[in-house]
């Protein structure tokens, strides 16, 4: 898996083209849909869409992912005629992509170098993707670090300081006098490109603008351009009394604003400070006026000198910033690779993976073993008999009375802690809320189909079963939900391994059994399935279909290895379900379904809850913000507790 970037910016195309490629809410939905369906060949995705760029950062198989992203952005159906096409796109991978992100974060790739807005835009983009659940370990790391580097470079260099144009400097210095300019009044005296640029810069800061011109018609025309008012020339003194900033650019040969005039004006202004910007040549403001108390006068020479000084300083600062980015980029990349790489020297002996001895557990362990083998590490499995295995044939009540969920896990964990094994395979459903101290969930493998499935005699669906069908299921969750679909069904207990369960069906003890679809697929028994229930029909149990790898919390080589097996989308969904279960406090006896699914609208969380006696039931679904999962789940649980 590699970091892949595909995008376009102000450096590669015009604003009209960038507009056509921007990620609107509808395009965002299509992008997420493409990712979830696998068309982008990406496990992680963050999109950055601003007026100056559209960048897609993904983690996936390099060639496939790159091609898919280019394909998505170039899709002619998403663009007006003539604006699609890959000619504007650039693509980078690996460290190059990271360096690009760091340059963007520090404002070095912006139109105005060092501008601060991009950092906020990057943050919004990252948290937008995180809320949608499309980020993972690599994108979380690089975006969080990039935002930090952006702040660090700005704090330690001067790339974002200093005006780069006369207009910008005028605005900056006006800010030094008046603070926020949104209440400032600007008077534009005359016309001219520079003065108009300065006026525009002020209006962008929400300052109020008024135009005054000797030729009233010209003044009106200019005022129309800025959608502001125009005053007659005779009202100059009154206009100066009201204005905070005066931009002067007339073609007069003599000064328009004299010291005498300004003395009168300052008296009428009660001494309120005023900022005079003389952009005319020859000067239109008498220099002596600048000596008056609370009058600040800057002419074109002053502003251009400041701009030149700032630009000279900028080149130096850019070089300094580049050096910092290079150093930080290398540090981030090396650390990430080190944390994710597998050193065969750490695994001189075959890695022992602990598992239960059931057919399903062994099948699941084989999945892990084949993935680990791809990383160049040999494995061997160790079968450990758990307390749960000993009670397997007993009733669910007896199982619960003996300790519930942890029964299938305890002995394996003990062996992990004792060093008999280095990795443990569990079904997430079997994992208790709190792991033993010193252990951690090292990875969540890609989730198999979490839905429940029906295996019926005669190969029929639920609706086609005979009246009062005997349906075997050990799970109250399944029973109560199926009872909605077949109120006439008679439910029977079902325990034991898969072979035992199928034997019960084949013997004719029941008409159908309900099982986890994932279990049957992993055992190669999917041909026996007659119906797979949608999550709306039967909400799966929390963690259903997920295999987890447990390891010692301080066993770094195994943790690094396990990270490479981790599936980000499964992780985020599984964590949401586990969190929900922990918050709600559901034990084995509580019929509870909870299923988190990433969709193009975000994380859809479905819940089924029932009282153990089935008298009260609740079906609920909502969207959760993945960037604030803990709070979102807590709020959800609080809402449910209120209802029930």
């Amino acid at each position, binding site marked *: 898996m590699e970091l892949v970037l595909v995008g376009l910016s102000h450096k590669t195309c015009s604003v009209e083209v960038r507009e056509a490629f921007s990620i609107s809410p509808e395009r965002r939905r299509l992008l997420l849909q493409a990712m979830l369906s696998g068309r982008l060949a990406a496990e992680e995705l963050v999109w950055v869409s601003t007026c100056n760029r559209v960048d897609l950062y993904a983690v996936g198989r390099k060639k496939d992912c790159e091609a898919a992203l280019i394909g998505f952005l170039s899709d002619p159906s998403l663009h007006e005629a003539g604006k699609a096409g890959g000619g504007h796109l650039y693509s980078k991978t690996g460290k190059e992509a990271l360096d690009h992100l760091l340059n963007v974060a520090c404002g070095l790739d912006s139109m105005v170098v060092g501008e601060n807005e991009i950092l906020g835009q990057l943050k919004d983009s990252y948290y937008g993707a995180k809320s949608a659940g499309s980020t993972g370990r690599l994108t979380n790391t690089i975006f969080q670090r990039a935002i930090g580097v952006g702040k660090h470079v700005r704090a330690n260099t001067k790339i974002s300081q200093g005006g780069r144009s006369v207009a910008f400097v005028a605005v900056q*210095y006006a*800010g*030094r006098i*008046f*603070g926020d300019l949104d209440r400032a009044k600007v008077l534009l005296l005359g016309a001219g490109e520079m003065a108009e640029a300065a006026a525009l810069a002020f209006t962008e800061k929400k300052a109020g603008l008024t135009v005054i011109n000797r030729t009233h018609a010209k003044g009106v025309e200019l005022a129309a351009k800025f959608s502001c008012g125009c005053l007659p020339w005779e009202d100059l003194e009154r206009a100066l009394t009201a204005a905070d900033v005066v931009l002067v650019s007339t073609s007069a040969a003599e000064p328009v604003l004299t010291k005498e005039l300004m003395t009168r004006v300052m008296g009428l202004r009660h001494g309120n*400070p005023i900022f005079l910007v003389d952009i005319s040549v020859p000067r239109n403001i008498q220099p002596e006026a600048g000596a008056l*108390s*609370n009058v600040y006068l800057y002419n074109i020479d002053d502003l251009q000198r*400041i701009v030149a000084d700032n630009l000279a300083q900028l080149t130096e600062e850019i070089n300094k910033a580049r050096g910092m980015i290079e150093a930080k980029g290398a540090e981030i990349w090396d650390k990430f690779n080190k944390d994710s790489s597998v050193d065969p020297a750490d695994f001189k002996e075959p890695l022992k993976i602990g598992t239960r001895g059931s057919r399903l557990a062994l099948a699941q362990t084989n999945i892990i073993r084949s993935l680990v083998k791809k990383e160049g590490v040999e494995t061997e499995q160790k079968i450990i008999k758990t307390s749960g295995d000993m009670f397997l044939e007993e009733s669910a009540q007896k199982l619960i009375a003996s300790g519930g969920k942890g029964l299938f896990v305890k002995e394996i964990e003990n062996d992990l802690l004792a060093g008999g094994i280095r990795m443990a395979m569990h079904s997430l459903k079997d994992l208790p809320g709190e792991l033993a101290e010193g252990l951690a969930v090292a990875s969540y493998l890609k989730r198999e189909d979490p839905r429940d499935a029906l295996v019926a005699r005669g190969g029929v669906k639920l609706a086609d079963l005979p009246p009062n069908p005997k349906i075997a299921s050990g799970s109250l969750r399944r029973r109560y939900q199926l009872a909605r679909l077949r109120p006439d069904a008679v439910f029977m207990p079902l325990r034991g391994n898969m072979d035992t369960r199928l034997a019960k069906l084949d013997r004719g003890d029941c008409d159908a059994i309900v099982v986890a679809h994932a279990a049957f697929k992993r055992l190669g028994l999917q041909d026996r399935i007659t119906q797979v229930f949608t999550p709306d029909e039967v909400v799966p149990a929390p963690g259903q279909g997920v295999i987890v790898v447990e390891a010692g919390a301080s066993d770094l080589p195994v943790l690094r290895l396990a990270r490479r097996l981790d599936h980000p989308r499964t992780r985020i969904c599984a964590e949401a379900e586990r969190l929900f279960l922990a918050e709600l406090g559901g034990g084995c006896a509580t019929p509870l379904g909870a299923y988190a699914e990433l969709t193009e609208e975000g994380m859809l969380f479905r819940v089924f809850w029932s009282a153990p006696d089935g008298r009260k039931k609740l079906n609920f679904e909502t969207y959760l913000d993945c960037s604030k999962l803990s709070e979102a789940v807590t709020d959800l649980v609080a809402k449910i507790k209120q209802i029930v």
Partner: protein
Amino acid sequence: MYDFPDFAAISAWCVRLAFAFTLLALGFGLFFIFNRAAKIFRAALVFLGGAVLFQAAAFIALTLYFWLVPENRFVTPLNTPRGMLLALGFCVNALLLGLELRRGTGITFVFVLPWSLLLLAVPLSLGYPGLEAFTPQAASGFAAAHNFLFIVSYALFINAFGASSSLLLSDRELRAHKPHEAAFALPSIGDMDKLIWRLVEVGFPLFAGGFFLASVQLWVKYSRLPGLDVKELGALATLLVYGLYLVLRKYGDWRGTKAAWANVAGFSFIVATLLLSSQAPKYHRFFSF
């Protein structure tokens, strides 16, 4: 009999800690001018907050010290030099802390805290008085009331002086036409002008109230109006300067740099009053403790 803690020592230690914290706040404030990192500003605020707490503790400990004498019970030491200086220092720092928490300019630290340090340094150098009952003058509620009003208004005026210094520095830098980059850390002239006005607008009535109470006390006790000694003259001059500033701000053109200079003049009168008042004739000598 109860074994009371050594309140004098506690107060002295609190003053030392307050001094140290104020010094650290000033240091971080200065550093912030050149390195405008938010965490440096926050650190300065934390130290200033610590200084305020220690100053409050020092005053409380001083009060408890005096209350060891039964006759002094429930009389504040505001009429003693030490008590007055501690209270003034506390008000100055507390007000600065409040202003910075609200406005976050991060820069008035540099102009106000040196005075705060001075106010703390004086009690550090003074020895602790012996434990005796307050004189009737020291125990006077009237005197305490007028001192309280003066202390709070002085704190406001000192902070206004800090804002004035910032404004004058900004003005100087802007007129240089190529300000030093550290000057960009200074708050805007408009903001400082407004802050000066608000502080004086609140401080002036308090000061005037204190002056009035002092005048009444003078009349009742000595059958004369204020004007005969340095402290009274100093207070009168201070009252006139700030009063004139408020009037001319509203009806004249005393804004921006003129306002700042007026406040500098007012602050100078305050400093002169405090420094020279120990030389005053008997009516306004500081009491023996």
